[in-house]
């Protein structure tokens, strides 16, 4: 695979070294949270506590943390099915996220969505989405609503819409970018490029494999950034969001990282070459950031281990919370079909008669 780590067009980090040790440690802590949570989720899947599809952010921890460090509370986030890390770092309780994976009533959406559908309106995380590209038009619509209701400015709201590299090949992406470009909507389309869509490398799926250039047909500018560096990701995202806020200039931000494991927990990824796997492991962002902070003196071994232990405990607590939480009852099956109560809504379970003579007569 071509080395895309330092490609033409890659953005230099704006203020490397300008961050306090505390800030950097905070990023590290969040990265460890995502890492440990995902490893535990994988374990819980193997123990059949979690079902369905389960896609992990392993290898994307720096991207998750950097992007969300740039996003303000007033901004909106739309993401994909690979959403646990975003849910956690955006501020959802690990217990509630784990409970969602366990399908419990205490899950972030009551166990109705599962792994792919984390959502929290208060945190303005408007969903993980399982249909590839499905989130892009609604995210564009959120930007439309912001534009509809408020003026541009440095304090304006904006939308961040995440997608995978392979998702840029679906029509919804292109239609959305055209609309955003035409109407000047406050949105940043983030392409989380982990170099693979399931088993397909970017170069075999995109006629323009420099994905940050894919907005050019819509006059939407793009930049590419090292997705293994949370600070670089953050700074690039801040710059992009600022343009969205102040100038209503939509843009693309492409983050380059590696998927450390299979597409989902059940994919053994046999199609990946030894070299590819080695390259991915060599670029694991979590130990890299740890070493960087150690070297810079922002972190010492003892503190790092302490962070790790504390996170482990948080994740264990999350599992315990999820385990102890109640299952939803079949009697609640019809509780969330329509927001507005409506006459004659079907509440029949399989095998119930649709209409009885009595109900027709009465």
């Amino acid at each position, binding site marked *: 695979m071509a080395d895309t780590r330092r490609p033409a067009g890659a953005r230099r980090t704006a203020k490397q070294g300008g961050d306090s040790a505390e800030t950097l440690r905070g990023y590290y802590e969040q990265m460890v949270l995502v890492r440990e949570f995902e490893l535990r989720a994988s374990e819980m899947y193997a123990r059949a506590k979690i*079902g*369905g*599809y389960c896609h992990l952010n392993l290898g994307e921890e720096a991207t998750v943390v950097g992007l969300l460090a740039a996003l303000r509370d007033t901004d909106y986030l739309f993401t994909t099915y690979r959403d646990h890390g975003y849910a956690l770092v955006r501020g959802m309780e690990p217990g509630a996220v784990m409970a969602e994976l366990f*399908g*419990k009533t205490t899950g972030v959406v*009551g*166990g*109705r*969505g*599962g*792994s*792919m*559908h984390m959502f929290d309106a208060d945190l303005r995380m408007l969903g993980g989405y*399982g*249909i*590839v*590209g*499905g989130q892009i038009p609604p995210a564009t619509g959120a930007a439309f609503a912001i534009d509809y209701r408020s003026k541009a400015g440095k304090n304006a709201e904006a939308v961040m819409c995440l997608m995978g590299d*392979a*998702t840029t*090949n*679906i*029509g*919804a992406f292109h239609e959305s970018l055209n609309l955003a470009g035409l109407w000047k909507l406050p949105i940043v389309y983030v392409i989380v490029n982990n170099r693979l*869509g*399931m*088993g*397909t490398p970017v170069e*075999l*799926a*995109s006629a323009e494999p420099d994905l940050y250039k894919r907005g050019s047909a819509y006059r939407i500018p793009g930049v590419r950034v090292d997705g293994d560096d949370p600070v670089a990701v953050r700074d690039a995202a801040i710059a992009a969001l600022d343009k969205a806020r102040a100038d209503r200039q939509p843009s693309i931000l492409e983050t380059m990282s590696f998927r450390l494991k299979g597409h989902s927990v059940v994919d053994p990824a046999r*199609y990946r070459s030894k070299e590819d796997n080695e390259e991915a492991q060599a670029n694991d962002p979590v130990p890299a950031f740890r070493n960087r902070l150690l070297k810079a003196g922002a972190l010492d071994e003892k503190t790092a281990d302490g962070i790790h232990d504390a996170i482990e405990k948080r994740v264990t607590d999350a599992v315990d919370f999820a385990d102890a939480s109640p*299952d*939803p*009852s*079949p009697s*609640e*099956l*019809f509780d*969330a*079909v329509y927001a507005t109560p409506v006459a004659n809504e*079907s509440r*029949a*379970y*399989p*095998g119930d*008669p*649709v209409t009885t003579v009595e109900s027709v007569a009465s």
Partner: protein
Amino acid sequence: MTELTYRQALNDTLRAELTRDENVYLIGEEIGVFEGSYKITAGLLKEFGPKRVVDTPISEEGFTGVAIGSAMLGLRPVVEIMTLNFSLIAIDQIVNHAAKMYGMFGGRVKVPLVIRTPGGGGQQLAATHSQNLEVWYAHIPGLKVVAPSNPADAKALLTAAIRDDDPVLFLENLGLYNTKGDVPDGEQVAEIGRAAIAREGTDLTVVSYSRGVVTALEVAEQLAGEGISIEVVDLRSLRPLDRVTFCESVKKTSRAVVFEDDMLSYGVGAEISATIGEAVFDWLDAPVRRVAAAEVPLPYAKPLELAAMPDAAALTKVIRETLAASGYRK
């Protein structure tokens, strides 16, 4: 006869048709290097090369349309859409284009296309990934929709679909891939548009298709132990619909229950039940009942998913109620 899984029967059939006719090619996401999301195309890229087994980007509308265009020129594409849910992205190409061309262009162009895709819930994949939308396609003249319930039919219907000159939606089911059955050796070509009697019986007819037939057969076996004789009709084809076979069955049994994976309202069962009412009303001893999915976006949590999906217990209950309603006595 060889015992095969449904998956293997499909895989063997694709191999046989690729070998037989060089105009046949496979196209879809992750069908080559990845060997298919559900491994239906395992080994075929290696055997036939990238010209015959075409990996595509995630562009359902685009590659389905490409398949349609190539079919207009006489190729015989077999499209894999990873799951039926994602066919919604290609639905304009399927419904407004593939299904319309032959009729709209006055019979002057054929579209010999197959779209293979699995439907079905029950795997905790939540609302967008668990749908049974086959009836959307079954509603459309110009399309053929087949839904085999067992490995032998999977083979014979897929062969027929590939050799057919019309667009065929070939419905698979996630819950069926690992099921096993005897498959006749050698070339087998089913006649599309014909139902089958999957089990003979005299007391009540259960009409079903795809995964539902497996459950219906289990229930029939169970009830046979009590001396209740259930006939199971496997529709096999949702469009065209073989009305004669299930109506003849009802003439014999005088009672019918439809067991379907899709939603009850406007579903397959609505069509079956209306047909029975119109055609063989005088033979009926009880109203035709339908056992279908609860009408909710399918939840992820297992207890809710189980409550929403039609199962053997619900079918058994409705069979008993239908027998009771008709004064049935052993």
